[in-house]
């Protein structure tokens, strides 16, 4: 997904099979099945979780996306939706939950706090869960409207439909580095410029 794994050096496995009509049909089938039956792992912490529940309820209805079966056990989940702010105390928990999810898995960062820390630029808050787990779709909002969350889900479905099983790198697990961070501090600093990360807890210096 564009980021080198935190392990030793980039690993590129070249598939011996070249893409052809059969692989594209198989891809289509697998991706269609995966995209339309994503079982969410609702990692709901705060206000966004309430909007997530409202999205799952009868007015907005996630069941039409195949997502009404919430999987609170990560072992059976496909997509981790982090709905709400993530304090540092909760960070190891979400990392563990993410690690417990089997591939193929995706994640949606719902809300401003999960995406970047939101209004909580404080000593307690992780300034974006992408410092801890890889994120596929960011849904902005505080909280995002249910329509916004559904747009994010549809973007994820579109992303999934563009995948291919020949790309081994795609489903490779990106483990945390020895410092407990998914992204290394320089990358975090670069990504958070020019607005900066005034909390700077993950600053390399």
């Amino acid at each position, binding site marked *: 997904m564009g980021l080198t794994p935190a392990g030793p050096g980039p690993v590129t496995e070249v598939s011996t099979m070249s893409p052809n009509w059969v692989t594209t049909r198989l891809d289509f089938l697998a991706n269609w099945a995966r995209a339309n039956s994503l079982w969410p792992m609702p990692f709901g912490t705060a206000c966004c979780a309430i909007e997530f529940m409202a999205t799952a309820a009868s007015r907005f209805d996630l069941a039409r996306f195949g997502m009404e079966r919430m999987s609170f056990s990560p072992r059976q989940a496909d997509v981790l939706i982090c709905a709400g702010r993530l304090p540092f*105390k909760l*960070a190891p928990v979400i990392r563990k939950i993410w690690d417990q999810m089997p591939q193929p898995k995706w994640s949606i960062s719902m809300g401003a706090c999960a995406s970047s820390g939101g209004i909580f630029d404080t000593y307690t808050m992780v300034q974006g869960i992408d410092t801890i787990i890889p994120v596929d779709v960011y849904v902005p909002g505080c909280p995002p409207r249910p329509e916004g969350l559904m747009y994010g889900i549809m973007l994820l479905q579109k992303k999934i439909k563009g995948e291919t099983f020949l790309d081994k790198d795609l489903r490779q697990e990106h483990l945390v580095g*020895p410092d*407990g961070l998914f992204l290394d501090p320089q990358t975090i600093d670069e990504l958070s410029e020019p607005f900066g990360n005034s909390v700077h*807890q993950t600053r390399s210096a």
Partner: protein
Amino acid sequence: MTAPVGALRGRFGAAILRDRVSCGDTIVYVPAARAHEVLAWLRDEPGQRFDYLTDITAVEYRDAERPLEVVWQLRSLARRADLRVKAELDKGEALEVDSVWDLWKGADWLEREVYDMFGVTFRGHPDLPLRGHFSRAEQTRQALAANPEAHYSLAELSIAEAYDELPEDMKNRLRLGERGEVR
């Protein structure tokens, strides 16, 4: 409402350092050493009967010279009266005051929070300062240290007494504690 203040002065005299009314709330200042006595009297005295503990908190002012104030917010449900009791703790000395857990069970978590946030120790609290061994600042520091192999140190665990009977590798892990080596 000056009625409780008058009664307090009558009972405790000089121990009531001062009182004021701010925005309609009556506030009474007591020395930290006598806080428990005053609060117990306020709860049990038939004319006062402040049976409901609304809140315990602390205030630290921006002016570093001012002492830290521990604030007890009391309410008498039957008499529909409120009272705020404050004790000033000098920052140069130990921040300690007696716990009122024996008077109101609701003080349990409230005092733990004041300990975590301000470092005020409550003598006689069932859990402090042992289980809350580390203040919030220390917990934050440990969390930020991001040591994925961190374990609880021996002092925090309730199995400290059983240390001798534990398996060897468990003993090793416990000895390394929170600052153990990163594997």
